[in-house]
């Protein structure tokens, strides 16, 4: 069995052999892993595959294995969020997306590593240790969905779910040379996904190719009455896989090619834009003047929401609990021991930004900037169909290189976080290499216009071979 397979190829294998055998082979690959991509491997995966074999292969994903980020609730599997504080917590309910996957026949391989509570861009803040980048085991896979991207890149799952609050699907997709989509806000239910910043995040798929992204979206997207922010967009994602960009208008926002960008990244992205032009698209530069304030606004909003979301982890009802002479002492000690440094930093900053006397100066101002950024996207996308830019200004950095310098680490989200402020869809697709490390092209669209994004990405992919390259380190 080839190590890397598309979903269509996995389906063929299942028909030739069985879901059980395919699952067993993925479990074997996970057993030999060099990357620490999984926090928990499901003990029930084989049993689940056997059951699907017995029932006949019904459902669009019958017997197809999938990896799930460890902040998405699955009944019976720990949901650590990469944190010590959730030690021993096993969710008694499935996330909506998990219900959908199980109904489609998918087999859950396990839960993947992530930055603690999705706070990070390198998967280094996980309580369970860093995940290695399959292209260079000394480098980070990106984050926060680093485990999900890395296991797909390493052939330890055909595809995976991540979550994207400020780039957490696209950043690791770019660093690991896979495809990742942050859907339009509201497209995919957040029910059962542990919140980092509710107003910004979406569950998103990671896969080896654009087609599999669409296959997964057709299963997980749609209205859910348990999530008041969910919307029925009625999009048919696989129908958008059209190999044709004739007449497509591409906008290139110069603000995404700012100071500090790696020259090879800039070159690769422009080559990709010119490739689309060769295929019949046209491009023009667009200006988005408020993008330079997006990063600051993003971090204030995300940390503010996080400071409230994470208040429930107090040791009273579930998870890790420290000893204390009274309730207040117990809560303080539980949170002091249970959260990592980066999480505590963000809770403190968020608490500060919401405090009386600072609320207007920081939080309220950040909301105003958010509106301006949104307007920038509206304006730019009124003239063009999609925007193209680098996903990450630089390729994957070394493990430990930036972890002591949070500000530099925050800056790496500069091109991904504006998208979350605006709520628009954005996809990262491989578009080149520098010193053997993958580069990601970011394609952004209008709200609920994933079809335009998928069409551009699919056409580009079908006419290039970057997505067929595999990391030799894990071959």
């Amino acid at each position, binding site marked *: 069995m080839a190590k890397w397979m598309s979903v269509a190829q996995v389906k063929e294998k299942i028909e030739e052999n069985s879901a059980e055998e395919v699952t067993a082979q993925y479990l074997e690959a996970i057993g030999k892993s060099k990357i620490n991509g999984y926090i928990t491997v499901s003990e029930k995966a084989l049993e689940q595959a056997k059951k699907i074999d017995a029932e006949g292969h019904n459902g669009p994903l019958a017997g197809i294995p999938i990896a799930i980020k460890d*902040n*998405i*609730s699955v009944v019976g599997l720990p*949901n650590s*969020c990469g944190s010590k504080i*959730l030690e021993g*917590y096993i*969710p*008694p*309910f499935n*996330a909506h997306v998990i219900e959908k996957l199980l109904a489609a026949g998918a087999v859950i391989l396990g839960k993947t590593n992530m930055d603690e509570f999705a706070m990070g861009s390198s998967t280094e803040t996980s309580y369970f240790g860093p995940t290695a980048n399959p292209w260079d085991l000394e480098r980070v896979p990106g984050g926060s969905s680093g485990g999900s991207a890395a296991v797909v890149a390493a052939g330890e799952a055909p595809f995976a779910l991540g979550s994207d609050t400020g780039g957490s699907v696209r950043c690791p997709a770019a660093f690991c040379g896979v495809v990742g989509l942050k859907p339009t806000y509201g497209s995919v239910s*957040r*029910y*059962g*996904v*542990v*919140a980092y*910043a*509710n*107003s910004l995040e979406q569950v998103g798929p990671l896969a080896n190719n654009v087609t599999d992204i669409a296959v997964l979206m057709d299963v997980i997207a749609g209205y859910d*009455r*348990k*999530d*008041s*922010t969910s919307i029925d967009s009625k999009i048919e994602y696989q129908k958008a896989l059209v190999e044709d960009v004739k007449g497509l208008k591409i906008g290139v926002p110069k603000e995404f090619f700012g100071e500090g960008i790696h020259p090879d990244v800039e070159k690769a992205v422009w080559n990709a834009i010119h490739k689309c032009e060769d295929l019949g698209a046209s491009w023009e530069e667009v200006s988005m003047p408020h993008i330079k304030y997006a990063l600051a606004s993003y971090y204030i909003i995300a940390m*503010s*929401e996080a*400071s*409230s979301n*994470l*208040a*429930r*982890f*107090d040791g*009273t*009802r*579930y998870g890790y609990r420290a000893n204390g002479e009274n*309730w*207040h002492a117990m*809560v303080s000690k539980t949170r002091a021991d249970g959260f990592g440094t980066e999480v505590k930093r963000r809770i403190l900053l968020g*608490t500060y930004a*919401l*405090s*009386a006397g600072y*609320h207007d100066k920081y*939080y309220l101002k950040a909301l105003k900037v958010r509106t301006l950024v949104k307007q920038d996207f509206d304006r730019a996308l009124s003239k063009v169909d999609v925007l193209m830019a680098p996903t990450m200004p630089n390729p994957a950095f070394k493990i430990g290189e930036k972890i002591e310098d949070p500000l530099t680490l925050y800056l790496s989200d500069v091109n991904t976080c504006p998208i979350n402020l605006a709520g628009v869809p954005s996809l990262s697709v491989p578009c080149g290499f520098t010193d053997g490390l993958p580069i990601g092209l970011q394609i952004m669209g209008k709200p609920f216009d994933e079809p335009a994004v998928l069409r551009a990405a699919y056409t580009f992919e079908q006419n290039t071979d970057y997505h067929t390259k595999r990391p030799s380190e894990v071959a």
Partner: protein
Amino acid sequence: MVYENPDGVRIGLEIHIQLNKLKTKMFCGCSTDYHNAAPNTHTCPVCLGLPGALPVLNKKVVEAAIKVGLALEGEIAEETQFHRKNYFYPDLPKGYQITQYDFPIVSNGKIVIEGEDGEHTVGITRAHMEEDPGKLVHIGSIEKSKGVLIDYNRSGVSLIETVTEPDMRSPKEARRFLDKFRNILEYLDVFDGNLEGAMRVDANVSVHWGTRVEVKNISSHKGVERALLYEIMRQKNVIRRGGKVSQETRHFDEGRGVTLSMRTKEEAEDYRYFREPDLMPMRITDWIPAVKETLPELPDAKRTRFIEQYGITDMHAKSLTSKIMLADFYEGVCAKGVDPKIAATWTADVFLGELNYRDLAISSYDGEKIGFIHAKDPRIKNSIKVSDMVELVNLFAEGKISDRAAVEVIRTMLDTAEEKTPSQIIEEKGLFKAEDDLVTKAVAETIAENEAAVQDYLGGTEKSLNFLVGQVMKKTKGTADAKTARDLIIKELKG
């Protein structure tokens, strides 16, 4: 007469009421019928605040809030939204409470009460929706408890918090306001005030137009009155001794009847409000007309109608409409063709008076009978049928029983659980009014047997007449009408 308010008292109230007539909680499908259930059996991932669970608003809460707003003659917001109020407490499973902040659903309402000097208007600043936290259960007393148990059955139950202007000028006015407010809420059928924890009150009070003090979490109307009386006395004494009242939050110790300092202004909490990102802002203007149609006749309107329709006094009308179930019961009795004025006397004066004497609170009316329950011990409950009241009123109106006998019938019905009609009770107790000749005979005997008393009376000692009447009553075993007996004696002795 104008009330002088000699101590310059200003009282404002913050009232939390549970919308306990709604069948499910505010943001999940859990049942609100948990009062007799085992702890933590009415919970789910949403009201336990499990990671990843999300709130979905129960639309009935919004409808109820609009209803309350309309009844208080307030403005209903065109757009309203929820905020998070952040604080740590073990009964708060998410570490924040979903509530409303700068866009409350209701603002600028009012309630007219019977004030110290006649009708008095109390302004309603705002009313907003929020979720109830769970409940802490101390093992033993709070001071000596070794541990705390948490019951999340209450977590996520819908509340409406109402904030008044500081318009009340005495503890009595505060209590009257609460009585009236509760009455309105029960008319709207969104609230049952008899359930434990249904209404909780914080009171702000100042004297001599000075610094206000907040007294927190008082659970009964009587408690509010007592807490305010104590607090006003305390503040007056602080000033009398040359001190200054400091702005602080105090706690009312119900057992000792005193208020105790909880925290000063400097220790005030910062709740870091921000908009709840899991719920969308709502435009509700379109909902208002449909809700308006469901508004029932409110207490003041019903009172006016009772006076006109039944020809009863304002005092009776007020008393009968002070509780929707009592008003409905009275109308049920009148519908059977009895004299509405006599029915009003026996319902408003006697029946209600006997209930209050026994600490029984009206708790239900189903069209056939009115139920009541002991205010402190819910195991004690009973009911009286419409048909029983009709029978009693008719027997009295036809002169078949004395008023003393009628009172005795009502007392018997309240005090025994056996289902007996008034006739049966009268029969068993021999309460039928004595025949006239029997009374005449008893009067003659009494005069013959009590020479001394007769002479005293004729000599001008009025008291002796009472003694003679008592003797007649004794001879007739209480079945004689006292007034008739009295008249007969006077006629016999003085012609």
